């Protein structure tokens, strides 16, 4: 299989206007990924599937990931005037990482027996602009997995033939796998409660174990 840099040039050539970024991977697994932009994702996917040298005809896994906003405090050196003299001072600065939901696809080739190629798509934010193009018209295996990402994370896939909840029941309203999901509070009191379960049990059963 080609390296990601060669792949990036070929993708940009085949789907003009596509913005492809290579995301490195910190672990020893050596599996860097390609970040695609939303507007050209389906065209790039079709190129990846139909190109004869790549032939990624098998989308093995489609995952959703939740990246909430993180505030990173770092010290940076700033030029400031102190007592009339310009000096470099270290200041504590706060930086907010962007918040988004992400869909990660793992692609393999059954014909040429190579892979994996990891492709990522990101939404704009976690609140209202959460739609991504669906890759189900390209790879049918994404059908149930994208439904699951919609069910558990809330990403709306445009172009999906049948987008409805798959694991939770249809009337359920929240998105369980998000990091800020608060579980329902109707707990049965457990005899060995720990920490947060103990606090919840005390709220419902202040006198002790129920009869």
């Amino acid at each position, binding site marked *: 299989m080609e390296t990601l840099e060669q792949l990036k040039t070929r993708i940009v050539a085949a789907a003009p206007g596509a913005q492809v970024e290579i995301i490195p*991977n*910190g*672990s*020893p*697994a050596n*599996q860097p990924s390609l970040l695609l932009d939303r507007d050209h994702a389906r065209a790039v996917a079709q190129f990846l599937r139909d190109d004869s040298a790549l032939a990624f*005809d*098998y*989308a*093995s*896994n489609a*995952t959703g*990931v*939740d990246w909430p906003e993180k505030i990173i405090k770092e010290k940076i050196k700033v030029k400031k005037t102190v007592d009339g003299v310009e000096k470099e001072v270290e200041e504590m600065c706060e930086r907010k990482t962007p918040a988004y939901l992400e869909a*990660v696809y*793992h692609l393999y080739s*059954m014909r040429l*027996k190579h892979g*994996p190629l*990891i492709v990522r798509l990101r939404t704009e934010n976690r609140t209202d602009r959460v739609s991504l193009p669906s890759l189900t018209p390209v*790879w*049918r*295996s*994404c*059908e*149930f*997995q994208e439904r699951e990402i919609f069910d558990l994370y809330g990403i709306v896939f445009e172009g999906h033939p049948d987008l409805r*909840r*798959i*694991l*939770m*029941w249809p009337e359920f309203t929240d998105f*369980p*796998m998000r990091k800020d999901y608060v579980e329902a509070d109707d707990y049965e009191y457990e005899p060995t409660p720990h920490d947060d379960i103990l606090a919840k049990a005390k709220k419902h059963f202040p006198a002790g174990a129920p009869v």
Partner: protein
Amino acid sequence: MATASPTELAASAPPSQIMEVAMGPQHPSTHGVFRMDVSLDGETVVKLKPVFGYLHRNHEKIAEKCSYLGSIPYTDRLDYICSLTNNWAYAMTVEKLAGLVPPERAEYIRVILSELTRLINHSALAGFLLQDMGALGTPLMYAFREREKILDLFESLTGARMMCNYMRFGGCRCDLPPGWIEQVRRLVSDFPKFLDEFEALLTGNEILQARTEGVGVLPAPLAVNAGVTGPMLRASGVNYDIRKVDQYGVYGRFQFRVPLGERGDVFDRYMIRILEMRESLKILEQALRDIPGGPIMDPKAKLRNLRPKAGEAYGRIEGPKGELGFYLISDGGPNPYRYRVRPPSLINLTVLEDMCLGQTIADVVVILGSIDIVLGEVDR
């Protein structure tokens, strides 16, 4: 029977004649709490929508709270018939994430246990498929008789028959007790006799052939595009076995063939599983012959408080049902940031509707049985 598109079938039947049946979550043949909303025109299936989520325990969220060691017993309960292959897939992914290398003896033990798991899964499947067809339990009990011998082996090694919790990242939990290898050798030499008996009972049976040949045909291009893996894919003629493609562990050292089917119907899937059991026996013989001595854990592996560097990894194995993959994202802490199971049973269900259209409702049960789903894996 030729399969027509759902719109053609639905258009040909007048709407007042279509009956909607929920083959509901409580059903003896749906392999667990699984529901299918089937629309029937007489006895022909016009539309089929699978509904699941009755066994959803949100294993992925529990794993974000547990440490890497604490998730291993939960992986046993994913595909609860084959617990050791689930353990191996997870252990392999953590090893990729943290950069651990298990020693050779551990790799050979893993191969032996994984092939024994393939034997128990395929015999259980053959038994259950025949039970769904109406052979009320006889082939099932013969298959379970052999399964019990293998489960006894698991108990003497790992401590539990089904929820084995044996593989660890970096190797295995404990070494083989004395005499275990001889017991496995005896089982491997006796197993072909059972397979011959099983095939004499079933493969030539005219009722089985009439009910399964030509039923539930899955064409190869659809199988590849829909992400079907495992014996179902190979029954449609596509040669993709992850043991041969990725050669994870020490599978590169063993000689074995990959059986392929021609027509992609239920009979091919049943026969592929019988043939795969014979190939597993070959791998077992070679592994038992070559297993070296030595340590069983990577000395660098820390069980408690493992904190891999921030990054991600995707590891996959050829489980008995298909490609079982785990995707882990670490943020440097003791718990995984994202933990995802790629369930083969769920992805294989994508094509259930395509295979069942135009068939009778009695065939739906047979086709579902041949896909080999386990709800613990579909719902997690």
